[in-house]
C-alpha cells in the first residue's frame, strides 16, 4: 500500500482526508486506485483524454516523478506520494492563441524559500 497526500483544495473529494492509502505497483496504478475510490476527484486530476492535467505534479518521496519514470515509476511498500498542484493563470494573449500556450515549466526549485505569511 502507498500513502498519497492530497492537496487541500482536492480534499473535499476525499471526504476531507489529507492522506489516503491506495494500492498499485506504479504511480499510474496508485492514481487509478485513488480515483476509483474517489470518482469525483477524477475530473480534477485527469483531462477528458485521460491524461494527467498540466497542473498536477506528483512527487514520490519528495522527487518529481517526471524526473523518474513518470507515471510508470514503480512503487515500493511504504512509499509516499504527494499530489501538489501548480497554480497558474494569466490574461488572454489572443483569442486564437490563448489555448495554444505552452504549459509552464512547473518544477520545484530546491532551496527556494518563499516568504512567510504576512
Amino acid at each position, binding site marked *: 500500500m502507498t500513502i498519497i497526500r492530497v492537496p487541500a483544495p482536492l480534499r473535499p473529494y476525499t471526504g476531507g482526508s489529507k492522506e489516503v492509502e491506495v494500492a498499485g505497483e506504479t504511480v499510474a496504478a496508485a492514481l487509478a486506485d485513488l480515483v476509483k475510490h474517489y470518482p469525483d476527484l477524477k475530473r480534477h486530476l485527469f483531462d477528458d483524454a485521460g491524461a494527467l492535467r498540466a497542473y498536477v505534479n506528483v512527487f514520490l518521496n519528495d522527487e518529481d516523478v517526471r524526473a523518474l519514470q513518470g507515471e510508470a515509476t514503480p512503487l515500493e511498500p511504504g512509499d509516499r506520494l504527494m499530489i501538489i498542484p501548480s497554480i*497558474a493563470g*494569466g490574461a488572454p494573449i489572443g483569442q486564437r492563441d490563448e*489555448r495554444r500556450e505552452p504549459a*509552464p515549466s512547473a518544477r520545484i526549485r530546491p532551496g527556494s524559500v518563499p516568504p512567510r505569511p504576512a
Partner: protein
Amino acid sequence: MTLRIPSGLLARIWQHGQQAYPEEGAGLMLGRFVGEARVVTHLLPLENHFQPESRGRRYLIAPRDLLRAEDDAERLGLEIVGVFHSHPDHPARASSFDTEWALPVYSYLITQVQAARALESTCWRLTEDRARMDEEALVITDPALDEESS
C-alpha cells in the same frame, strides 16, 4: 459565493500588482471558509515562476511554495482560501487559461493593473464541471474590522 477581504489587505494586493508591473504578480490568500464565503485574514505574496519572457501574461506559483503555504496556514489555524494575481494592461476578467488551470474550492481574485496603476479587482470561482469560472461577490470589509489582519 462571496470573498470577504479587509480593505487594507486588498490595498496590499494592489500594491503587489503595481510593483510586479509589467509582469503579473501573484500570491495566496489565507483565511477561513465560512459557509459559502471565504474570509481573507492573511496574504502570502509569492514569486512568479513562469518563464521570464511570458510573465507579462502568465503567472505560476511553484508546487514547493504551495506546499509550504499549506503548512504555514495549518500552523496558523487557517486555510488557503484563494489565489490573487494581476492582469497588466488587461481587464480583470478570468481568461480561458485561468479556467484551464483553476483548482476547485479556491477563490481567484484578479486585479487589472493599467499603466502600473491598479484599477479594479474582481473575484472568480471554478464551476464544479470545470466548464467556466463564475464571478463571485467581492466584499471589502471596513478597516475597523481589520484588527485580526496583518
